[in-house]
């Protein structure tokens, strides 16, 4: 029970990573020719899905398995 609560901390990561543009508001390095600002945020849509998938897997319950 306790360990499953810890997984909720995982959900905070996308907030910290994306809501503070000071962290990523720069041009370099370019990724696929895109300035970092744009590439970083696009990549985070994928990271967010992965984090949520991990969260669902880690906190799954027997009652969920339907």
């Amino acid at each position: 029970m306790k360990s499953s609560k810890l997984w909720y901390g995982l959900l905070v990561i996308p907030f910290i990573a994306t809501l503070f543009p000071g962290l990523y508001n720069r041009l370099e390095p370019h990724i696929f020719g895109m300035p970092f600002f744009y590439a970083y945020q696009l990549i985070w849509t994928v990271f967010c899905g992965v984090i949520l998938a991990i969260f669902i897997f880690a906190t799954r319950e027997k009652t969920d398995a339907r």
Partner: protein
Amino acid sequence: MHASSVVLILLLLGVTVLGFWAAHWREKGTLETMDDWALGGRNFGVIVSWFLIGGDLYTAYTFIAVPALVYGVGAFAFFALPYTIVAYPFAIVTLTRFWTVASKRGYVTAADFVRDRYGDRSLEILVAITGVIAILPYIALQLVGMKVIFGQLGGAFAAGGGVLALTVAFVLLASYTYTSGLRAPALIAFVKDTLIYLTIICAIVAVTHMFGGWAGIFDAAGKALAARPKPATLLLPSQLYFAYGSVALGSALALFIYPHSITSLLSARTRTVVKRNMALLPIYSLLLGFLALLGYAGIAAGIKVANPQLIVPILFQRIFPDWFVGVAYAAIVIGALVPAAIMAIGGANLFASNLFNEFSPTRTSTETRIAKILTLVICAVALLFVIFVNPKYAIGFQFLGGAWILQIFPAFIIGLFTRWFHPKALILGWAVGIVAGTYMAIMTNFTANFPLHLFGGTLIGYGPLYALILNLIVTTIATPIFAAAKVGAGTDFTSAADYA
């Protein structure tokens, strides 16, 4: 007639047939109960829900407005990405809990929950009215999106400023929504999203080919931005960092409390379906990001428009053969019809379930009949709004709607976790939030960024979020005061087991 118009008409006819046929799709009941008509029998699995919720949240207006904003202001428009990223970790905790209690206690709307949780009829009515008022301009904006496309097509589509085509499209929409309920947009969403994904992928391939990769697009767009009368760059000015984060956060908190989000969410079969969707829906955010980049492609291609909303439609005309322009435009028009149908159902549910007191608490076929008729009324009101009111006001009202819907956050979302707030304090907080949100909206001329003067500094941020903070402060202070004054706190009809 152009090939694009022929393709568009064929696709629109196709989805209309699909909309009516949806009444027979997965038929279980007779479409006479609220659960059946308004929530598709509460029986959609992961895939149907993914298309439905995605088709619902990522509206045609989004597809027009986000690139338009990129064209207009550059980097700031990309707040749409953090917005549609953080919405999901937020929703997986809060909305999964709401789905659970709603499924156990048979709620159709957020106001149903508020009534049950607080035993307070006035709070329920306020929450319901807020939802209805917020949804109307949102539907109107879908029509604005369609109007942009019809205007670009010209010919019969543009006749009378596009009013004729809009009316035909909306009468058909209202008819199949009346007949088939939520099953119609659920089925049409498959077509919508297939077309949208196809269009965007083709557009990305075309523009990157045209400029020899993303570097070429950003290079050209950056130069064009710098050469503007009001020069801009590809990066955010640092004084807008807080605004960027707060607009994204405030929008994300509002996204899932809109009535149409609730409607599509509650149609999910199980809690697992809801959760898995939260992990899969960010795929749409990625799509939205690429779509936003098309705004830069438009700038790079040297397209100059007085109305930024035309940037994507004109870009499509430049890069696609005429028949495929028809496909792309159909994607946007159908992309307007799907959310408009769900929004009309969501608004009608609030009327039928929460504003008409005399109906019995068990959901009857009478209530469904009322909701069905109200769907028609809501569609008609939205249509009249777009025909007779300047689209500029539709956008202003939609912004205001966003500020207002956020004010039900304490009663609805926080109410899912604690019953500490006093219902009368929630009403007071709601009122203060509505007044403050409206005031800031008027002060900023219905734009997102309000300069808050606080402790000698100025913080430019999202006005509706400031209003919510004020709402929470008032509610928190007033709760012990109402309790001390022994004002009745209502009965909580839910139990801890309902949320588990």
